[in-house]
């Protein structure tokens, strides 16, 4: 699809465009990205404080609770930074590949923005006031202030508004281009938002019951059922972040390095598999819980492994692209092409590091879900090390790489060689810090060091003392990470307001086979039905069991 430079020939209406960017759409995306990096900044400082406290380097002041800081870090990083980045990035890509957002969709995007910001402010205020030290999992019967849950509802409503926007724009483009497959980016956008939307329904149900319960209107809550609803969402949402990173690997990375997409069809099969196979798996977070039969746990443990299949297809496709480009650049022999890749380009380096991190990250995931092995590492720092590899490396470092073309594209600026170097530095410092942090967390966890615990010697226990060296390395890792993070936040600021003006393209690669993509792949109704069937298969029986065989419920409890 060619880019329309003349504003009056736009398919929709006259939309102001500067160098190919629709100004109004750019403003929306930039607003989301600003919130995203503000959240990363504050969340990063929270992470540093935790690292310093847990390692014993610098205990927190008496007026600040470790668990308050941990709650803020979890919510800001896992929920706010990621969600707002994703909406900003997807809306920008939709605007670019679908020839502008519909005015209606742009409005939905702004409504979503307002709801999310209001919700986040509400949630973070309750956390700051010390009324919601319940961590980002907020397991009942720990009961936060009702405003904490109301804030979460607003965030979910914001997400739904953005989802509606994606679905409407996608349908509109399909109607206008009958018989044509949608651009691959838009196809990814559709998959990501379908998965995200359906995953958010169970947590919305959970939070809506927690509101009257925390206000004292509902005397008790069904603890196991709430926990199931949370993990149906929680397990999937991290895969949504991964899915977003995958979209950039397929669509943008080949273009950046001067290559082609390995196969358009294969990419779309990966999208379908990620949507269909993702939701069943929530119980692999509940492997050592009571009241769940081993049969159900086994089913979920191995169903969540099904996600490995599209991941392995992705590994193959991406490395095929790299090999072709490397050979084209003169790489010889079995692995010579590897050296001929543009390692000095942050737009390639960062997503590549993200991809490479997914190799140990994915392997660790297979271990966590391997049932008996989970019992060894469950709720230890191992798990924290694992999701720092997957979310804070695979997803977040890919997001970092995206910034260096997305932001200049949106602001009508360019990435200078100097800024590219600053980007490479931020990426490498971040990666080094994370290797220390995540590596030591894996090792400490393997020997039993619990997660989500403030500094403690457990009454001078010898075993606990043996964890100290790992925790020290973890603290050092947190310091290095923060340096990388601050540099990244500065770079984002620079790309938004300081970089020289110019035209930066939104990199969209093409595939040789994209004209022959079969139209049945666009049948989202079918994929959604299959997804719902798989969800039903995974959750119907245990959900009914949790309700029918429930013990008397639990009242709200505040223990902090």
């Amino acid at each position, binding site marked *: 699809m060619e880019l329309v430079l003349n504003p009056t020939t736009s398919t929709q209406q006259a939309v102001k465009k500067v160098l190919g960017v629709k100004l109004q759409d750019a403003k929306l995306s930039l607003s989301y990205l600003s919130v995203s990096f503000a959240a990363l900044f504050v969340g990063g400082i929270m992470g540093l404080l935790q690292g310093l406290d847990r390692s014993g380097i610098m205990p927190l002041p008496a007026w600040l609770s*470790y*668990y308050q800081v941990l709650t803020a870090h979890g919510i800001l990083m896992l929920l706010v930074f990621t969600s707002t980045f994703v909406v900003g990035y997807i809306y920008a890509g939709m605007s670019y590949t679908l020839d502008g957002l519909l005015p209606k969709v742009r409005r939905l995007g702004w409504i979503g923005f307002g709801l999310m910001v209001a919700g986040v402010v509400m949630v973070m205020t309750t956390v700051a006031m010390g009324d919601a*030290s319940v*961590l980002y999992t907020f*397991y009942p*019967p*720990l009961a936060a202030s009702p405003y904490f849950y109301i804030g979460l509802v607003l965030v979910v409503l914001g997400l739904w508004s953005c989802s509606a926007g994606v679905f409407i724009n996608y349908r509109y483009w399909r109607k206008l281009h009958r018989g044509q497959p949608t651009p691959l980016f838009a196809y990814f956008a559709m998959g990501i938002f379908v998965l995200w939307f359906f995953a958010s329904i169970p947590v919305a149900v959970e939070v809506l019951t927690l509101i009257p319960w925390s206000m004292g209107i509902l005397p008790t809550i069904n*603890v*196991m059922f709430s*926990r199931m609803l949370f993990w149906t969402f929680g397990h999937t949402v991290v895969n949504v972040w991964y899915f977003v990173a995958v979209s950039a690997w397929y669509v943008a990375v080949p273009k950046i390095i001067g290559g082609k997409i390995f196969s358009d*069809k294969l990419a779309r*099969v990966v999208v379908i598999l990620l949507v269909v196979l993702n939701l069943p798996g929530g119980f692999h977070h*509940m*492997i*050592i*819980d*009571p*009241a769940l039969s*081993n049969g159900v*746990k*086994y089913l979920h443990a*191995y169903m969540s*492994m099904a996600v*490995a*299949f599209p991941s392995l*297809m992705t590994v*193959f496709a991406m490395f095929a692209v790299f090999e072709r480009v490397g050979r084209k650049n003169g790489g010889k022999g079995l692995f010579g092409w590897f050296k001929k890749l543009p390692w000095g380009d942050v737009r390639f380096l960062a997503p590549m590091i993200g991809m490479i991190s997914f190799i140990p990250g994915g392997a660790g995931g*297979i271990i966590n879900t*391997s*049932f*008996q092995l989970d*019992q*060894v590492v*469950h*709720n*230890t720092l191992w798990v924290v090390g694992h999701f720092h590899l997957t979310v804070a490396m695979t997803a977040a470092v890919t997001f970092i790489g995206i910034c260096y073309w997305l932001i200049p594209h949106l602001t009508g600026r360019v990435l200078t060689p100097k800024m590219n170097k600053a980007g490479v530095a931020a990426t490498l410092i971040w990666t080094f810090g994370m290797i220390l942090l995540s590596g030591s967390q894996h090792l400490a966890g393997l*020997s*039993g060091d*619990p*997660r*989500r*615990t*403030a*500094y*403690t010697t*457990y*009454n001078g*226990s*010898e*075993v*606990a003392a043996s964890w100290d060296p790992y925790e020290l390395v973890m603290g050092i890792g947190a310091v290095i990470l923060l340096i990388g993070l601050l540099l990244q936040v500065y770079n984002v600021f620079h790309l938004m307001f300081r970089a020289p003006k110019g035209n930066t393209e939104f990199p969209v690669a093409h595939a040789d086979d994209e004209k022959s993509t079969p139209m049945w792949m666009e049948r989202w109704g079918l994929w959604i039905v299959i997804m719902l069937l798989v969800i039903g298969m995974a959750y119907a029986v245990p959900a009914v069991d949790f309700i029918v065989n*429930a*013990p*008397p*419920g*639990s*009242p709200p409890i*505040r*223990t*902090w």
Partner: protein
Amino acid sequence: MRMHRSEEIWLTVTTAFLVLFLLIGGYLTVQLAMSPPSHRETIDPQKVGQTAPFDNPGVKKIGENEYEVVMTLEAFMFTPGDIEIPAGAKVTFKLTSKDVVHGFEVAKTNINAMVMPGQIQQITQTFDKPGKYLVLCNEYCGGGHQFMSAAITVK
């Protein structure tokens, strides 16, 4: 859909690995009964102190070198908090929570279980090596979570 030969090989080999994982996991679960703690028994979480056997927590000898430990978890303590058993004893822990969600972990062993209000959890372990074992809560349960620990002495 047409695929490259090398891609077919890659996907076949990797999928075979995943299926192998699945089979090993299934074998361990079904044949060797090495399944994670999944006890099913409910209790009124607000009446734990009045419900047997949790009205009388402690260590009970139930067979030759076989013990049962009835234990309650609450913010921020285990009851009993100091347990003594002879080496080689097979111990079954019966656990429940009086308030929020807790975790029951004995460091350097495979004992690791979630303890939920309203549910009775059970886990069994044979303690062969004498020594002092650290029991800790590994699920966040409130402001004093880091102080929630107990000790098992194996003589």
